[in-house]
Structures are given as C-alpha cells and as structure tokens.
C-alpha cells in the first residue's frame, strides 16, 4: 500500500505525477533546487524539500539527498519521472536498498534495456530486427572509422546511456566523423554522466514510431499501440501522434507483438516504450532502443486509449495486477501533442530563458495542457526548456489538428520566445495535414517556409496589413502610456458611439 510518494523531478512531469497521486489519494512530496523554491510542482505538493543549488548535479541528480529526504518524510515510494535519474539503474538500486518502492522497472531490466548496446543484443536474441551497426560503445577513433566504413555512410552516432537527441549526430562523410564523435561524447558526458557512444547505419527517409508497453509483477505484458514521433528537430521530438497517420491495425499488431516479446524477455515491469525505425516505403521496422520509463509524449496514448499511465504505474508498483487486458485496449480517435519550448524559432531555436510576464493557457473541448509553470515564473537556464505539452484529441486526425490549431492560437506566452509560432505554421502546412511524416519533415518544412516568408514580406508593401498597423499603434500607445493613466471605467459613452458607428459604417 503506497500512501506517500516522493517525486524526484521538476516541471510539468512532476506536476503530472502529483495529479496522479491526488487521484489515488496519495500524498505527493516534492523536491526542488534553489531555483525552484516557488515552482509549480512545489506549490501543488503536500510537502517540499530543498535538495541543493540550481545545477542538476547538485540537486535533482543527488541520489543520496533524494533518498535521505524520502526516508525522512516517510514516503513509501519514489517516482523518477523522465530525464534526470529515471533511467539510472544505480538510483533504482539505491531506492530499493533503502527499503522504498521504485516506481519503474527493476534495476536489472534497466541494465539490460537502458543501455542501447545491450538492448540491441537482447533484441537480436529475441529475433526482433535491428538497424545494422555495432552493439558496443566505440573505444577509439580507429574503431569508429573502421565500423563506419564497414556499414557505409551515412551513419548515426548515439549516446549509449541516453535519449532525447543529446549526444546524437548524423554523419554523412568520413571527414566529419571524428569531430562529430568528439561533440557527441562531450554532450553525452554532460547530459548523462557517461560519454559512451555507439555507431549505426543511418536509415534514410525513416519514420520514428514507438510502442507503449505495460507489464505488471504477475507476468502480464500488454502494449497500448504506437506513437508517431517522426517530426523531430535536432533529433528531439517536437510533435507526437497516436495513432500514427499510417493507421494500420496490422502493423500495430505486428510491432506491438514484437514490443511485448522484448518486454517479456527482460521481465520488465511498469511502463516502457520500445522505439522503432519504420521504413515509409517497405513498412519494415527496426528496433532502436527501449526507454525504461514514462515517456514525455505519454498523453497522446492516454487520450486515445483512455488509460491513465501514471495511475497505472503507481498501481503496478504497489503490486496490483494490470487494470486491463490486451483485449480491453481500444484506440478511440486521434491525439496530437506539441512540445512548447522556450526557444526562439526565428533565431535557429536558441534557448530563450526568462520571466513569463503573462500566460494564457488554452482550454475547451479536446484540449489538454500539461504545464509546469505559472504566470510570473522564471524559465531557468539550468533545465530543459520545455514549458508545456499541449495535446489535442479529435474523433479523427483532421479534427485533432483543427483543435490543435485553435488551441495554439489561443495560447499566449509573454516575456520569452517560444516555439508556438512555429507550431502554428506546421498545423497549417498541407504536407503535415496529409500525414506525410518522416524524420526529414522539419528540414523540408523549413525549405517550404522560406519563400512563403519572402512573398509575405513582399505583399505587405502592396496590401495594407491592418494587424501590423494596429500593432504599431499599440507600440506607440505603450510608449506614451508611461505618462498617461487610462481611465478606470470601460463604460464610456464614446466606446458606445464608436461601436455604433462601426456598425452603421459597415452598413453603408
């Protein structure tokens, strides 16, 4: 019986886990760094404890402090969220050794599946196809050159310990290989504390499709279908969907069966994700890696299957059987998620930390926003720049896109730059609406976008842009506003006259 859970994370995922705790009448305990003393996850928790200064290494990655706090506060279990310590088998071991429940798979399963190289061996043994390449981390520059020549360029360098695009590099030519390797190792070390990098053949025009799996401690293993994650930038997912626009029940069943086989092979428990590369031409799929944790994009699966993955994680960790069987899983409608980042899309997606001076979060039918930040709060330079995940559900993909477009337009984040304008363009893009998704989508989209921008700028000189003119007036008013106090009442007769004259004017 779990009565109190310490959440070893921050931001939107900590808030998400707090909500699941509340649903189950479990008391949530937050931890925070000095930069997060008034963060949303602290405000929504029952208890909160400081771990240390802002840098992750001194706070959210401090295994010793986290376990100390968990024991002191009387927590029964620890939920690691994603990122930080979520895929750290040492953490899972330390939690268990302290007599607490780790809400995730066993350290042994994490050891086997957490490292991509070892996971590839498991897949090979289970007969699940993998992308050609080496399964061991690269030990030397010579070895890197040898393997790359063997499997042929282009090749992909990947951090053995991590995901999320960090420590990942696509290399087209031999002379780019060694600099790329150095950069990949440096990023991997900084992100995961481990510079091991491996090499594999880069599949061209691939789709990234992943399967959500779930297993309990009683031997039940099921899959919850796929998520299409092909829209990536810097190897980082930016839009995810469930189902994939391919929407083939047969492919889902085949990939799902392969994912279940792998999951069962390592006696996995809890929520996990098996990532595949799928050829858009042949529909062949290759095992890429397993994420042994809750996935960022889990809401799209929740919206379509109706199953609360975090609630189920907690139930399974407390020893309960899965609350559903494979036959109970139904895919209803379509869901899309946009990851809203504090990045400037007009400036090569440079991080844009700072204070959010005004925030309007969209609501209404089919919309779910998983945020971790309040109006007035600071987006810190120390952590991932994701500020929220905006998800839309519809009866079909078109309706989901319609609703996403509306919600993106309703969303207001002032004070920092965000990727919202970028998403507003994508959901209006014909190729996106047609579901023609592969990992080359964003580069192609950026190509299409450029001429459109120029023609827009050109047309602005001929046609009058009233929006621009009104924005110019607003800027002028704000300048004067420093010395001018607007009248407090909104009910002037002048407004009335103006509105009436607008009506009358329109009639002529």
């Amino acid at each position, binding site marked *: 019986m779990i009565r109190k859970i310490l959440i070893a994370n921050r931001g939107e995922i900590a808030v998400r886990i707090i909500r699941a705790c509340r649903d189950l009448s479990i008391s949530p305990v937050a931890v925070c760094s000095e930069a997060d003393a008034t963060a949303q996850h602290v405000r929504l928790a029952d208890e909160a404890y400081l771990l240390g200064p802002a840098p992750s290494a001194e706070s959210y990655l401090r295994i010793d402090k986290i376990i100390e706090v968990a024991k002191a506060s009387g927590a029964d279990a620890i939920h690691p969220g994603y990122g930080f310590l979520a895929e750290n088998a040492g953490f899972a071991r330390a939690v268990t050794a302290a007599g607490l429940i780790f809400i995730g798979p066993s350290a042994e399963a994490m050891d086997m599946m957490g490292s991509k190289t070892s996971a590839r061996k498991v897949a090979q043994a289970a007969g699940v196809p993998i992308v050609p390449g080496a399964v061991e981390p690269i030990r030397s520059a010579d070895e890197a050159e040898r393997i790359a020549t063997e499997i042929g360029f282009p090749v992909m360098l990947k951090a053995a310990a991590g995901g999320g695009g960090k420590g990942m590099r696509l290399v087209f030519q031999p002379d780019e290989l060694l600099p790329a390797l150095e950069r990949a190792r440096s990023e991997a070390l900084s992100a995961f504390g481990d510079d091991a990098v491996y090499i594999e053949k880069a599949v061209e025009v691939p789709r990234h499709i992943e399967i959500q799996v779930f297993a309990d401690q009683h031997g039940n293993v099921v899959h919850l279908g796929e998520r299409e994650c092909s829209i990536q930038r810097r190897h980082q997912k930016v839009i995810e969907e469930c189902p994939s626009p391919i929407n083939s029940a047969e492919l889902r069943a085949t990939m799902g069966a392969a994912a279940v086989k792998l999951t069962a092979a390592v006696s996995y428990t809890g929520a996990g994700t098996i990532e595949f590369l799928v050829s858009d031409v042949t529909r062949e799929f290759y095992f890429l890696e397993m994420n042994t944790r809750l996935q960022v994009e889990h809401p799209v699966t929740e919206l379509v299957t109706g199953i609360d993955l975090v609630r189920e994680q907690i139930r399974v960790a407390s020893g309960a059987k899965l609350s559903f069987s494979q036959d109970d899983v139904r895919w209803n409608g379509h869901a899309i998620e946009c990851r809203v980042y504090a990045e400037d899309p007009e400036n090569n997606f*440079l*991080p844009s930390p700072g204070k959010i001076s005004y925030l309007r979060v969209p609501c209404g039918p089919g919309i779910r926003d998983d945020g971790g930040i309040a109006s007035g709060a600071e987006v810190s330079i120390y952590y991932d720049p994701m500020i929220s995940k905006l998800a839309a559900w519809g009866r079909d993909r078109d309706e989901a896109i319609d609703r996403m477009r509306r919600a993106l337009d309703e969303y207001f984040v002032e004070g920092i730059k965000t990727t919202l304008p970028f998403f507003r363009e994508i959901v209006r893009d014909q190729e996106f609406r047609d579901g023609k998704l592969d990992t080359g989508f964003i580069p192609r989209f950026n190509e299409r976008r450029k001429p459109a921008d120029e023609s827009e700028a050109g047309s602005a000189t001929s046609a009058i842009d009233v929006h621009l*003119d009104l*924005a110019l007036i607003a800027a*002028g008013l704000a300048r004067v506003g420093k010395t*001018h106090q*607007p009248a407090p009442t909104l009910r002037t007769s002048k*407004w009335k006259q103006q*509105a009436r004259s607008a009506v009358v004017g329109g009639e002529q």
Partner: protein
Amino acid sequence: MKLVVTDHGTAHQLEFERDGHLVNALVDGRAYQVEVNPLPDGGVLLVHDGQVHECRVVPTAGNSVRVSSGAREFEFQVRDPRKLADANSADGGEGAAQLVAMMPGKIVRIMVEVGQEVNAQDAVLVVEAMKMQNELRSPRSGVVRELRVATGDTVNGGDILAVIE
C-alpha cells in the same frame, strides 16, 4: 504625438491623439479610429472598425519592444524624433562585428585565438545552455580582435563575447 516605429528596417510614421478611450491615429498617412480598453490582466484591447486586436507590448532592450497581437508577434524600435537619446540608441557601433551571446549560458569551447583570421560562418565558440550546445559562428570575414571570455565562463544574454574586424 509623433513617433517613428521601425519594423525590421522599415520605418513607419505614426501620429496619434488620445481622447479617453478613443484614439485617432495616422500610420504612414492611413487613418484609424481605434477604441482602446485596458485589460484586467494586462495588455490592451484595440477595436477598430469592429475588429478585435488583443495587444501586449513588452519592452525588450533600449527602444525595442515586442508586440503580440493575437497569435502574431512583432519586434519594433520606437523613436520619438524630438528626443536625441532615442536616435542614438537605435544601433551600436558598426565598425567591428560583435559576437553577442543570444542567451545566458556557459562557454564550453573556443575555436579561435586573438589575431586569427576567420571567414564568415566559421565556428568561433560553443555555448551550452539548457543542456544544448550551440555553436556561434562569425558574422563576417576578418580578424579576431578581442576574445572577452574563456572556456568555463558563464555569460548573460547580450554579453559581447568576441569582436571580429
């Protein structure tokens, strides 16, 4: 009130008179009568010919402001022609090209030395923020005159990191 508002290099002449909630404005000679209502949660609602524009104006640096109007965003420089200070702050020195940090972060690598010749788009240094490494490239061909940072330094957005002449 007369102002010059610049939008990506294009200067617009703005003239307006405010009378309570009503504003009569001329934008490059185009006349607008706009109803102005301050919003309870900040920002202002402009209604022109029935059309609703919810605008928020945030000062960024110097005379620069960011204006969001619904789902559209603009960056302007606002100058009062009668004020000298405004005219001067429009642009910095232009003799040398400066490499400016776009965001706070940490310098993780420097690829050049003072005195070294660089081509436009050559990598100069790498800044890490929010766990992403970003390479800053030279805006022009020339010689590295100054390097104001060292590996391991923490920088703020707007800091000048290097000068290339």
